[in-house]
């Protein structure tokens, strides 16, 4: 319907954005009736989303004519932004920005570099930036999940961890089960998206390639390639962040610094 009304592509895009915004607002209205208040957050998210993605769209207009190194620069900036966002997931642990930066940077960076060298990712900006950003984005999610899970695991097993320390365990030994849990759970989304690929989910990239007229068989396999790269980047990120964050939860003298926020100290009884 909209396509018949708008012939200009930009105007069509605008109209489509209005349509989906109305859809989101309708959902919010339904939620509101059930006394679930997500209006403010959603409206802010909608506004941010449209502004950010439009900005990126306009950057791409320039990027298409820029040399490859600008793509690398852009990805580096994305990694920093991703680290800043992810670090908020583990407030209360010092040094999370650094941990996130190293984990996301090394996790997605390694995969991007290797796959570009292998020729799986094209050096051209139109390929490097969207694919790279996809890897960074997923690495960020994994990193957030790792940090968040680690913090809640440590907080809820505070007594056991201190008991382990008191029995002569090192911080590494004391917290090992919780590092493992954080690592494993943070990878569930990436593993599941590979599992469900094609069955419950035809991802955007494949849809895009099909729309652009690619061979469906190649589009399908390339989608598998992408999701596998995401899993690799996520796996590396989770591995790095779960190892690095452990060191920040303890003092050099093997004391657990990360305390449950409700009870700042366990010595409440004395």
């Amino acid at each position: 319907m909209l396509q018949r009304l708008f012939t200009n592509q930009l105007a069509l895009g605008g109209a489509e954005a209005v349509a989906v915004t109305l859809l989101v607002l309708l959902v919010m209205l339904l939620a509101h009736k059930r006394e679930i208040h997500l209006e403010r957050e959603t409206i802010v998210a909608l506004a941010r989303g449209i502004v950010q993605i439009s900005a990126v769209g306009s950057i791409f207009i320039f990027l298409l004519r820029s040399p490859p190194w600008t793509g690398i620069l852009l990805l580096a900036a994305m990694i920093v932004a991703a680290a800043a966002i992810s670090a908020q997931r583990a407030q209360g642990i010092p040094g999370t920005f650094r941990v996130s930066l190293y984990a996301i940077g090394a996790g997605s960076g390694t995969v991007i570099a290797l796959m570009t060298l292998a020729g799986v990712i094209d050096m051209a900006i139109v390929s490097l930036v969207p694919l790279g950003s996809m890897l960074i984005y997923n690495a960020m999610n994994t990193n957030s999940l790792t940090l968040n899970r680690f913090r809640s695991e440590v907080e809820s097993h505070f007594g056991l961890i201190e008991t382990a320390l008191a029995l002569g365990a090192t911080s590494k030994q004391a917290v090992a089960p919780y590092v493992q849990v954080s690592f494993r759970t943070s990878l569930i989304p990436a593993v599941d998206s590979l599992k469900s690929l094609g069955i419950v989910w035809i991802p955007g990239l494949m849809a895009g390639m099909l729309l652009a007229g690619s061979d469906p068989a190649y589009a399908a396999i390339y989608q598998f390639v992408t999701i596998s790269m995401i899993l690799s980047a996520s796996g590396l990120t989770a591995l790095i962040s779960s190892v690095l964050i452990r060191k920040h939860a303890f003092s050099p003298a093997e004391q657990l610094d990360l305390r449950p926020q409700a009870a700042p100290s366990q010595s409440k009884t004395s």
Partner: protein
Amino acid sequence: MIEWTRFGPSVRLAFGSQRQVMMASASCTEKMEATMELSTALQQSHLTETRLVLETDHLSRVISGKRLVDDIIIGIQKGEVLAVVGPSGSGKSSFIRLLNRLDEPTMGTVYLEGTDYRQIAPRELRRRAGMVTQTPYLFPGTIADNLRFGPQQQGKDLPEDTITFLLDQVGLADRANSDIVNLSGGEAQRVSLARALANSPTVLLMDEPTSALDEETKEDVEALILKVVRQNALTCVIVSHDLAQAARIANRVMVVKAGRLEKIGSVTEIVDATETLH
């Protein structure tokens, strides 16, 4: 007695300790004090023969302006059981958590068998200063798994007969392979005690070991602690909010209030002093 323990570290200066050099460089007034205490110490020269297993030297922990533990100086002899009593929030637990360095002193330090505990690797320190907490936190698995945990961290296997011996001591003979999920509160605390002993500690620290238990179990576990401590001639620090319990278990009692050492003395001295107050 009270005077002597209060000035423990200075007395040791006169008889030579590892800290002699350090202390000797202290100010003149401190030297004079030390000389004065020397005479007191000479009168009680038998005390020099007893080894101080644990000493706190101006031990303090101040967190965001709050003096949780404030300048505590005590010495604990080998085989002695010292009870730490005081009202709720007085800093008893904060104090005992400093003794195995689960928390960091903001000032002062602790000497374990004459060595500043900052010179001892935390894992070795905590093996030597075992701890039993108010709530027994047991690791998932069997009772035996819990007993093995400490030695395992040092890369050692706890022999089966040691497990049997320890469980026998805490009244849980033949229960080695029971899963910890089926244990009562009292049983869990027994496991916690046996687990601490599995590390063959020099000092046993107990933080309100019976206060999370119901009345009947409380008596049983207290009796057990008393028995185990006597049998193994353990050097022991036990935190309790109950002076009567402290009197039953300890040789000596220290009273803390607002993080400060208020009184320290034999059980009778402290109990008498408390009674005259009422």
